[in-house]
C-alpha cells in the first residue's frame, strides 16, 4: 500500500495533499496528520487529492472530517477531489457529504473560486 505523502504542491494560496490508494485502520492516522499539517501551514485552501484513492473506510472518513473541522476553525477552505464513486458513496452513507466539500476531480477542486462545496 502506498504511504501517504505530504503536501505535493504548496503555494501561498493552496496546498494539495495527495492521499494514498487505500485508507483504512493502518494509515488513517497518518492521513489525518498530513492533512492537519497542511491546514496548520496557514494556506487559504487545502485540497485532499483522492484521485488515486479507490478505498476509504470509516476511519479514513473520520480523518477527513477531523481535517475539515480543523480547517473551518482556522478559516481555511478544505476540499476533496474524489473521482471514485465507491469512495464518495461511503461518505454519503456516513453523512459526511453534508460537511465535506467533495469534487469529482482535482481540476474542479482547484478551480472552484466560490469557497464552497460543489452541488
Amino acid at each position, binding site marked *: 500500500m502506498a504511504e501517504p505523502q505530504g503536501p505535493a504542491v504548496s503555494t501561498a494560496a493552496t496546498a494539495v495533499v495527495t492521499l494514498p490508494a*487505500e485508507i*483504512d*485502520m493502518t494509515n488513517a492516522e497518518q492521513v489525518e496528520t498530513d492533512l492537519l499539517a497542511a491546514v496548520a501551514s496557514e494556506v487559504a485552501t487545502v485540497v485532499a487529492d483522492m484521485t488515486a484513492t479507490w478505498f476509504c*473506510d*470509516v*476511519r479514513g472518513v473520520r480523518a477527513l472530517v477531523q481535517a475539515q473541522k480543523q480547517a473551518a476553525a482556522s478559516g481555511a477552505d478544505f476540499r476533496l477531489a474524489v473521482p471514485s464513486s*465507491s469512495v464518495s*458513496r461511503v461518505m454519503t*452513507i456516513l453523512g459526511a457529504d453534508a460537511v465535506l466539500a467533495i469534487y469529482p476531480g482535482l481540476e474542479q477542486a482547484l478551480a472552484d473560486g466560490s469557497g464552497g462545496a460543489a452541488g
Partner: protein
Amino acid sequence: MRTGAARGHLGHFHETGFYGSDAEFRDLIVPFAEEGIAAGEPVIIGYDDRKSALLRSWLSDPSAVEFIADSGLYATPARAITTYRQLFDFHLAMGAGQIRIAGDVPHPGNGGRFDGWDRYECAINTVWHDVPVWGLCLYDTATAPAAVLDAAERTHPLIVSPSGRRQPSRRYQDVSQFRGLTAAPDPLEQLAPLVELTDGTPADARHALMRIGRDRLGQATLDNLVIGTSEAVTNALLYGRPPATVRIWATSDRIVIHVHDHGSGPANPLAGLISPAGIAPDAELGLWLAHQLDIDIALIYGDDGFIVRLRGGATPG
C-alpha cells in the same frame, strides 16, 4: 394528535396480526387504512403487487394511500429502517400527527428470505421510539413458516385479530431479552474455502476478495462486499479475540465471506441496525455502514466465536 388504538401512545405502536385467508386479511387491513384516511393521516403501504391490488379494490379512496412501489424498500433490514425513517421525517415535517404503515417483510412464504428480519422486527420497537408511528405487520399463516410466526409473536408487543380484538403478546421479548434466529447455513460453507487468511490485514482481505470477485460479480456488488468485509476485518482485529480468519467461498456468480474471530461479538443484539447518531465508536459505525450496503449480512454467534457473514451475487440455489 394520534387516533385509533394508538391514541395517547408515545413512539412506535407496533402490532402484528395473523390471517389465513384474503377475507381475514381484509378484516385486518381495511379498518386500519380507512380510519387513517378518515383522520387525514398518512397511510403507507409496502406490499407486493397482488396484495396492493387487493387492498386498492377494497378501499373507498385508494389514492389517499401511499403505496411504495420501490422493491428496494425491503432489500435489507437496515435499508428498510433508514428508508422508513426518511418517510417519517417528511410526513412529520408536513404536520402529520400519526403515520400508519403496513408492509410485508420477506420470508419464504412470500418468496423471500427471513434471515435478519427477526432482528428488524425487534429493532423497530426501539429505533422509532421518537416517532408517532402505528405499524401493522400482518403475517399469512397459510404461507409463513412456523419460525417466522414465532418470531412475529416475540417481536410485536401487541396482537390484533381479524375480529378487531387487541391483546398484548404474551411471548413478547424486548431488546434485552430478544434472541434472534440462527442464520440458515449456506451450502458453500460445507466446502473448502477458496481463500483462508489468518490475522491478515483488512487490505489482504480486500485484495483477495477483488481477485476472486472480478469475474464473478458486478462492480457495485463487489464494491459493497469489499467495503463490508474490510470493516468486519477491522473490527475483528481491533475488538475481537485472535486469531481472526477470513474465509472466502465462490461459485461462478456468487461469493460468501466469513470474518471469524474468537471473541463473543457485539453485545447489542441490534448491532449494525441502529443508526449511530452523533459520535459513535468506529466499531459500531463500521458495522452499521456494512449493513447499509445492498448485500446479505448475518451475524452468527457460536461456541467458537463470532462470525460476520457477507454474501453477494446470485441467491443460493
